[in-house]
């Protein structure tokens, strides 16, 4: 099953969810390091 419209159209939902999860985790960890460094 694929996303049917928008900039992510034509891409599979599963792969898209995994990609968003991966990059979302990276962004969240990065923001934590920028905003609240682990001291």
């Amino acid at each position, binding site marked *: 099953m694929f996303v049917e419209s928008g900039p992510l159209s034509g891409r599979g939902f599963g792969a898209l969810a995994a990609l968003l999860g991966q990059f979302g985790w990276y962004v969240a*960890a990065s*923001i*934590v*390091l920028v905003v609240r460094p682990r*001291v």
Partner: protein
Amino acid sequence: MSTTATKSRNGTTGGAAGAMSARTQRIIGACGIGFVILAFVPFFVVPPGPPPDASGEAMVAFYSAHRSVLLLGGWVRSLGDPLSMVLLAGLVALMRRAEGEGGWLYLIFLMASLLSVALAEVLGAAAQLLYATTASSNPDVAKAISELVSLGFALYFLPLMAAWAAAGAVITRTAVLPAWLG
């Protein structure tokens, strides 16, 4: 600026990030954000490709019509690779210190992340080859390379699962990152 070592949730001192300055961590975080932005830019500038079951001729037509923007998107994504190295190295260093003596989960995170990055590089190179040469290549060859990239993309997530499992274990055992990231 405090230099107090982070304590693990079981009450012992993990020494997390004790030797890494806040400034360094902010640089690592900024690189991580830059990496993700560069990785996602192509999603918004590159038109969606033909479905996986499209014919070789349809793939040649698509990749030929959008060759320039596809190649540009690939290069933009590649610019984020050095930044991803900074982020991953920083996370590995934080986890290693958090685990302390005898820690080994950070090694799983390191190896699995390296494997996924290496796979992404190979797939990225194959995709660039596809975009660059499709117009002059056999449709069957174009379809074969396209399927290789699609299959490799699926495999890309296997090492990442190990990386996330290791990161989750370290995060829940120590306070190296907020628990909700574990």
